[in-house]
């Protein structure tokens, strides 16, 4: 046991070093982005690269806030993100349906669901747009949110994770007279917290970065999101790199904060057997 503990500690150190080095390499581009957001455009394009800004400036951020219709874009982005969590719930329901029930044509229907992932989004964009236009949903928040509400990726993810939940738990609850809905909301969802967290993060990122639908559907700037706003800053010719960098940095920070909060509660030391 003792030698085992020792070797375990050794292993931990080796793994830590590998992760540290690998992580640092992964982080370089990101670091450069953040550092650049405090540089002037001229400094970014110097021939001898400098990582840290020589004369740090907040001008980029100031310009960003000044130029962007900031409060409007932020509000829309938050609303869209919030709505997309409804989709998360629908995905979870469908995933559960495919994971824990047997019904006729299940495999075929599931393959049909997966098939929706297999065609490039640009090909279906115009048909979807025409459909929304037909039912009068263009230029509405509903029209922006609806097409991306559910997705095969999420359904598939939930199906995979929920299929590992043991059938006995469900059967036992059924014997106790619990309804199917009760089983899903009170037993399955709590057990699925890790995957809910994963899908939650993905949903948040998707909503936060949503770009093409808000632009296509909106005939009014009041529906624009932060991503659209950032794109507006890009001119026809040439790019202000510094401004782009600060914009990107600005959009990433909230996600990192959310991620920090979420992972503390959900991805840490969660143990299925800890549930009664």
């Amino acid at each position: 046991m003792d030698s085992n503990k020792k070797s375990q500690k050794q292993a931990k150190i080796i793994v830590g070093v590998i992760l540290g080095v690998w992580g640092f390499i992964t982080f370089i581009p990101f670091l450069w982005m953040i550092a650049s957001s405090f540089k002037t455009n001229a400094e970014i394009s110097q021939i001898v690269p400098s990582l840290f800004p020589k004369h740090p400036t907040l001008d980029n951020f100031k310009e960003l806030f000044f130029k962007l219709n900031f409060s409007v874009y932020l509000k829309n982005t938050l609303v869209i993100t919030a709505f997309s969590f409804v989709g998360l719930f629908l995905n979870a329901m469908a995933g559960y349906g495919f994971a824990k029930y047997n019904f006729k044509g299940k495999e075929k229907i599931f393959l049909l669901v997966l098939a929706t992932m297999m065609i490039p989004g640009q090909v279906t964009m115009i048909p979807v747009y025409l459909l929304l236009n037909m039912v009068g949903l263009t230029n509405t928040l509903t029209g922006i949110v609806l097409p991306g509400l559910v997705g095969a990726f999420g359904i598939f993810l939930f199906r995979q994770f929920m299929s590992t939940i043991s059938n006995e738990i469900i059967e036992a609850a059924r014997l106790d007279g619990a309804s199917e809905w009760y089983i899903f909301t009170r037993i399955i969802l709590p057990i699925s917290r890790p995957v809910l967290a994963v899908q939650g993060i993905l949903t948040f990122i998707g909503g936060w970065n949503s770009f093409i639908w808000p632009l296509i559907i909106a005939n009014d700037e009041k529906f624009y999101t932060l991503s659209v706003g950032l794109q507006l800053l890009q001119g026809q010719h040439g790019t202000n790199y510094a401004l782009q960098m600060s914009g990107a940095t600005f959009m990433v920070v909230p996600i990192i904060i959310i991620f920090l909060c979420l992972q503390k509660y959900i991805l840490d030391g969660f143990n299925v057997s800890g549930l009664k």
Partner: protein
Amino acid sequence: MKKQALWLVILTLVLSTFIAGCSSKNTDSSSSKSKEITFWFMGDGDKQIKPIVDNFTKETGIKVKIQSIPWGSAHDKLLTAVASKSGPDVVQMGTTYMSEFVDAGVLMDLTDDVKKNETIKPENFFSGSVNTTKFDDKFYAVPWYTETRALYYRTDLLNQVGYDHAPKTWDELYDASLKLSKRGEGKYGFNVDGGEPTFGFMFARQNGSKLFDDKGNPQFNKKPYVDSLKYLEKFIKTGAAPDHDLKLDISVGFGGEGIVPMFISGPWMINAIKDNAPDIEGKWATAELPKGPENNISNTGGSNLAIFNTSKNKDNALKLIEFLAKPENQLAFFKSSSSLPTSQKAWEDTTFTSDPFISTFGKQLKSSEPMPLMKEWDQITQAYLKEWEQIYSAGKDVQKSMDDLNAQTKSILGK
């Protein structure tokens, strides 16, 4: 009596606003919209165009809803507008989009309005710009802003190789470039832009190529065209120009030691150089393009203003276009966005005449033409870029390449 009259006035005012408020709420959106026109603008509208449009509203009482659209997604957004037949009233149309959207029949024919209106009649604008609005002798738009390409060069470095002026001819351009490239390893004279889809066509025109004959057949494998590419190829073969895209920022490529001390580009580079290469202030200039065997015709682009066919507010839309076409407003737009006026009169302002960098472009505009206006043009330029890439990076024979390009173009055009 006086007091009573005052109350009466107040009462009527309150009542009328109340009724007006109600009626605009009760009627459907189409009639309330009739007081407001929509305007799609590419880029950041709040800063660049809103102040000007606000003046329009002040002057005419017509409200304008501006929607800014990112450049990168402009085409997508226009496509969906066409598909749903719900475009804006006034739309900014890139000159290269014109043929496609005119062919689709989504832009209003403005021929009669343009001809009888003093402000927007074609004679007011540069002919190169007017040509982008005219299809089969009908006018579908009004020129708004333009751009053209001119030569940027480092006066100090050219002086060192014995040029106290910008190269005036193809021969001088090549001679100066070659001399500049002899400054040392990794130094060049000129940039033959391999990523610029109009580059070869522009030089071909200067060599007398008509690009297409009267029947619309491509002339890319004919002598004038092939020779112009051979001229460009010579730069790369002798090292007078880099054989790959250096991807240098302007501050490094043009500023400092001047790795590439001459290049051809549009007016937007003026500010880029001023901002990013302050070290070479006073050591650079712009000049009209060097003359080829036939002429020095440059390539013009920019944007026009058009009205969507679905617009129910043609009169008001036209008023906005007219307003934006006025020299003083084009001047204001230049100040907010650095976009060059299409109105010839606007160029008489001291803003342009006193600035040597900009005035070069004004002169060049008199010798500028748009690229051929056909909806397949984008595809043809892509084919050209690939063939040109084959020439300079894989050493493909120029004549062979152009035979291929000609054949591809014929198949793209369905000939």
